[in-house]
């Protein structure tokens, strides 16, 4: 359980970050915590992918109290890759995701049992200070760049237009 004070800080910081994202053209909204949502969440709309599917970037602070984490806070970046899962490709996908993960500057790709592929990065920010806006925006840019890089090969291997070996090779060299 984290205190009201910590939640209030998160909301205030999200407010500032929301404006930064809006200015950069990534329309953002804050979903405040409520009975249905245990945490505040900042949501940004990314450009749709190559097939026109909507993509979103979610930010949440990992709910650890100061007893647990004193100097830093963990800000999670999270985005679902809107690729239609084909169960018969599971082994190929696991191989591909692992290959891509090895070359990502930040974050990692993962896939759930139900076939949802996501790109996730947990960013450390100071607990003793407000988040630096320019730094934050550069991290966001990096995140989106990685996301874009990964999306195409994922789609290709899933559809079968490119073999997993060929797609992985690009990330392993």
């Amino acid at each position, binding site marked *: 359980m984290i*205190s*009201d*004070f910590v*939640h*209030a*800080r998160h*909301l*205030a910081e999200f*407010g*500032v970050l929301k*404006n930064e994202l*809006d200015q950069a053209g990534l*329309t953002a*909204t804050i*979903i*405040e915590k*409520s*009975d*249905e*949502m*245990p*945490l505040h*969440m900042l*949501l940004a*709309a990314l450009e749709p992918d190559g097939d026109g*599917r*909507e*993509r*979103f970037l*979610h930010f*949440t*602070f*990992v*709910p*650890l109290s*100061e*007893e*647990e*984490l*004193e100097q830093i806070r*963990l800000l*999670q970046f*999270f*985005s*679902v890759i*809107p690729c239609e899962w084909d169960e018969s490709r599971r082994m190929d996908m696991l191989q591909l995701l692992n290959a891509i993960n090895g070359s990502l500057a930040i974050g990692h790709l993962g896939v*759930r049992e139900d076939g*949802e592929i*996501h790109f*996730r990065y*947990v960013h450390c920010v100071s*607990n*003793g*200070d*407000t988040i630096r806006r320019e730094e934050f925006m*550069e991290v966001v*840019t*990096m995140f989106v*760049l990685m996301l874009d890089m990964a999306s195409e090969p994922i789609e290709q291997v899933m559809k079968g237009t490119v073999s997993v070996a060929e797609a992985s090779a690009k990330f392993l060299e």
Partner: protein
Amino acid sequence: MQMQSVYGNRAARQALQTMPQSAPLQLKAAKINSWRGAHMRKFSKMQDPVTMQDNYVVEEDKMVGPKITGKDEVEDLGIMDATREWVMIKFSGIEGFVRRDKLEQAGMQTSRTRLKEAKANSSWGTGKSYEQEDSVDAFGENSGSALSWMKTSPEGIANSFEKQAEAAKSDNEKAKAERQGAGASTATGAVDAVSGIFGGLVALRRTVQSYRDANLSGMDKFKEVAGNALETADNGKTAFVGGATLVDSAAKASGHADGVGKSDAVSGWSGSVGEAIDSVKSTFNAVLHIVKLVDKALGKEGASKREVADSLMASASNLMQGAYSGVKTAKAILKIVDTSGAHKAASTALGTAIPAIGIAVSAIKITIKAYDIVKAELNNHQMRKLKKDTKFKENNVDKDYFKKRSIKLFGKTLHSSVATDTDKLRARRKELEGNTSRTEDEEKELKGIIEYEFYHELQQINRKRTKRAGLQIAFEMVSIAGDVATLSGAGAMVGAPLKAVASGLSVTTLIARKAKQYGRDRAAQAGAWWITKKMFDGEKSSEEKFKLRARHADTILKMIADLPEYDDSDPVQQQYKNVENVVRAAGCDPKALYRLNGDIEKQRELLIKALAERE
């Protein structure tokens, strides 16, 4: 009668006795920092025979003293009236009351100014270091802030900000003069299963009225008021007009002479429960129909066939007029049942009594949001038709209010564009406006800027509104059970954001759990790594605790200093509200903090004490 509602229960009475309402607090210079300025109101003083306290009643219609502009300085006498919405000040030798929110914001704004100055001339300081004898005094050093119940709830703050935003918006709304359509049907059908949700609505309406009249003093007080409202007849102030149909009343409310801002949609609402549901359902379907129409118009086929798109949009536009009054009704209902936002305390009690109310709320929100999206799209469409000369940007690209924005990474420019620096643009316009002897070129520039600003602003708003509303709709779907989602028949709307929100959340909470678990497991093992042990031990020395509190205090002050210049735009108001909430959540009364504006050391100390108190 008024006093009875003010001093509803014993607890309130007792607490009020200890509150030095009549003793003037420190006389402090303050500002009315609202672009609208303020006008003091006359007041009368009465002594409560029970508590022997002085009560001030503000006569809102009677102005006294000269008009105060946003630049004038006034003296904050710190005395509040019985409703706690007005504060006594002194200006030009005359005493009068102004709305509390006008002064409070001045408090935060002044904090910001002083803190910024301190930052600039390096007088920020580092604060006192830890002292062994650091005893945490009772947090009641400043009289008037000792009792926690007096700290205005977040709802109170939301109310005060909301009011100011509403006041500013009402002027715009009047100017728009949207037509009240008669399109929404209000078939008085039989009450079906959904109506159970609205069963308590009637009582709640009365309750909300009483709740608003009484002090905002927390859950217990509300429960009592709600109980009274449900059981007994109203006290005359909350006359419940029966018989009129829902839409008629909603139309009347929106056609009220005072316009949207002043007239309270809640007070205008009356009608049977069955009518309420039917109206919302009709509206919902009507809006959905419109959404589909617009979707078609903007879809791949529509766009290429200009005429078809235009006529579809025209139909949509007409239908929108009809839907408008229905949406207004829905909004009125939403205000009552919404379990978040300004009226949280009121509806949370209702929510626990009627569990399904959350679903109803979401359905209503979706209706409203869908309406907003369509409205925004229609505006966009119309704006494209009215496309003005955009040469302004091209001709002035080298001026400093257009900035070249490029996204660079790893030495490569990924994307560049010319973005508008709205602050600089506004500053330049003010500069030109202030210059009474403009050259012909400057005259042209000023005209160009004004036009450009207008369309730029409209575009921004519409773009954001569309996307944001769309996101909100998708989010609302998250909180709705499957049944209602199918009611909308809009499976397409539920998609990426819905799933991702749930996933993202579950991962976040999972990390937290796992991290704690791992720590405990490791610490429990013999020969555990010392850092792990320390981190998850939970024991912290007093000195470490103090340092942490001091850092937090500094962070809060920093947040205030980093606030943008105050204006009445939504985003800025929201930021001010958020930061004030942080102060509150830290256990510190913002008023107490503002009183120390200009003295960082004292403000820091105050915050540190508040944080210590909370632990």
